[in-house]
């Protein structure tokens, strides 16, 4: 005979309390994340906007005053270099790890070692990379403060990131695509390029853009590799220092003149806008693919 047990009221109350606490705490934690972000962004914008001049974008730095065109172009040059070097290496490495690496059941495989090295490199502090870049590239190879050591150091920093995002984008491509390509008699390389990689382009592009956003905001690895200069970047990989946007923020915020402080905040604002543009672009690509995929 089935007896319907009297519901344990205290247990229900306890569960309800827990549920309410869970719901409230998730919202509180979200506020704890978004709040400071808004606080920081507003802080920078409010300090930069009152004396913002558009000429900052087109005039180079003169001493600790003037504009930021040298730093803006320098940062763009660095990003272009990172896009070429880290983009190529990162995407190739990601393709390799996802598609081409030999699969073995053994615990210690070459692929496993390469993959863990990628994970470890992602965690290596950027100041360490800058230190090594200074010792090995700037001093030992006599490249001086210049574009190439800066690009290489930044690239080593973001290659793991691009490789990882490429790998995960490729893993999301349905196996049926590969099987279909194979059934049509495509060679593996051709199928990879025309079918698999193409459907993974949004994921790969998003990874690239975020890697660029990361590298554009770095200071520590650039201080001892890129140097700084008041002039616009030269078309030279070595021997000519190159300016970048985080330098004015780091150097001029504690400079003795108000003009320097303005420049520091202007640079911070430009940097934020740049990062924002990259992130929005990444978002748009994702949104677009999702829309197309839904259809």
């Amino acid at each position, binding site marked *: 005979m089935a007896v319907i047990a009297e519901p344990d009221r205290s247990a229900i109350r306890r569960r309800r309390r827990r549920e309410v606490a869970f719901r409230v705490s998730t919202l509180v934690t979200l506020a704890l994340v978004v709040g400071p972000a808004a606080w920081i962004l507003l802080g920078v914008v409010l300090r930069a906007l009152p004396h913002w001049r558009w000429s900052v974008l*087109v005039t*180079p730095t*003169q*001493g*600790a005053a003037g504009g930021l*065109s040298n730093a803006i*172009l320098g940062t*763009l*040059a660095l990003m*272009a270099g990172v896009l070429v070097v880290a983009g190529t290496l990162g995407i190739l490495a990601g393709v390799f790890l996802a598609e081409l690496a030999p699969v073995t059941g053994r615990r210690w495989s070459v692929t496993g070692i390469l993959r863990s090295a990628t994970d470890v490199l992602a965690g290596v502090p950027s100041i360490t990379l800058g230190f090594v870049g200074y010792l090995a590239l*700037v*001093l030992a190879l*006599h490249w*001086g*403060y210049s574009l190439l050591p800066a690009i290489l150091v930044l690239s080593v920093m973001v290659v793991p990131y691009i490789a990882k995002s490429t790998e995960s984008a490729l893993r999301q491509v349905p196996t049926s695509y590969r099987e279909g390509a194979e059934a049509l008699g495509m060679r593996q390389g051709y199928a990879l390029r025309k079918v698999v990689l*193409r459907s993974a*382009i*949004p994921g790969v*592009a998003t990874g690239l853009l975020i890697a660029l956003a990361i590298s554009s905001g770095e200071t520590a690895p650039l*201080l*001892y590799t890129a*140097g*700084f*200069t*008041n*002039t*616009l*970047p030269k*078309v030279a990989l070595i021997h*000519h*220092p190159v300016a970048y946007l985080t330098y004015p923020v780091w*150097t001029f*915020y*504690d*400079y*003795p*003149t108000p003009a320097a402080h303005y420049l520091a905040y202007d640079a911070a604002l430009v940097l934020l806008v740049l990062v924002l543009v990259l992130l929005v672009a990444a978002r748009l*690509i994702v949104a*677009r*693919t999702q829309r*197309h*995929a839904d259809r």
Partner: protein
Amino acid sequence: MARNIRGTWIAAAFLAAGLVAAACGSASTTSTAAKSTPKSSTSSASSTASTSSSTGVTVETPPGASLTETGSTLLYPLWNIWAPAYEQKYPQVHLTTAGTGSGTGISDAATGTVDIGSSDAYLSTSQKAAHPTLLNIPLGISVQVIGYNLPGVTAHVKFNGKILAQIYEGKITTWNDPALKAINPGVTLPSIPIVPLHRSDGSGDTFIFTQYLSKQTPSGWGTNVKFGTSVTWPSVSGALAEQGNGGMVTGCKKTTGCIAYVGISYLSQLLGDGLYYGELMNGSGNYVLPTSSAVSAEANYFTAKTPASGTISLINGPVPTGYPIINYEYAIVNTQQSSASTAKAIRSILEWAITPQNGNSNKYLSQVSFQPLPPKVVAQSVKQIAQIK
């Protein structure tokens, strides 16, 4: 979908190409602008031009060159004023400046990474041994002030090396300590804790400040801690470390009861923030403010003692009216340059910088509160510059 994506990428590629083109375009236009304006604007300056008979400094006409300077963050503002002025007169030379710190200035000049290094501190014996071809050439004189944040105290508080050393050792901890009261009769010192600030980064300011402490208390600080661009600071409860001179000023501003050593370039900022600076006891036991006459009194005393190499500490001189913490700011240059034309360009810039009518005129130096070199030191610097080949 694929087509759309490809379209995006093509558009991006064009955008990038356009950017590069724009960059090249603006590069060429600005450089020509920079070259054309100076001729008209500095016609008067060029009459004071290439020679100056009174001090015997000849500024050589440089060949076309692109030079780099890096180093001291205290000299960086001055280089940023000097470089455009020099380039106006000699547009064939381009000088890139950067503020990375004195240590980098020295090591980069030694390895040839930059053409001119700059440093607040002279080369140490071990550096001289490691790089015998490096010169330290005095370019100007800088001063250090001792700032503090004591609301309501409007007088200049007096300090001496013994008391400062005890503050930084944690032995004097409040502002109304008997030792401080004894040398500050008539000043009402509040009973609040002293918060000593020191630089977290290695710094020429730390070098000269700890040198002052070492010289005034040879058996105390001079034995226990010694001096250097970075020292082992005694552990003091509540003490703060700050990044850069600006960090010292902002740190002191937000910390009541602080005490901080700050390069004189930051004096206006220090005062602007409602802080004040003290009188220091010099080598003859007098308390002196960092006025320009007190600085030149100290500088003049050390002029005769300055050796040809420029390596000398200007701290704690015995002149009754001299301010005790001043120092030469140095250019660190390798005598053996890669080419004769680079050497000539470097010589030209340095000669221009130390000439009283040019780089060493008050027009430039007063913007960073530096003092010019005494004539004898200028003459010695000229001799050092001539060694650059």
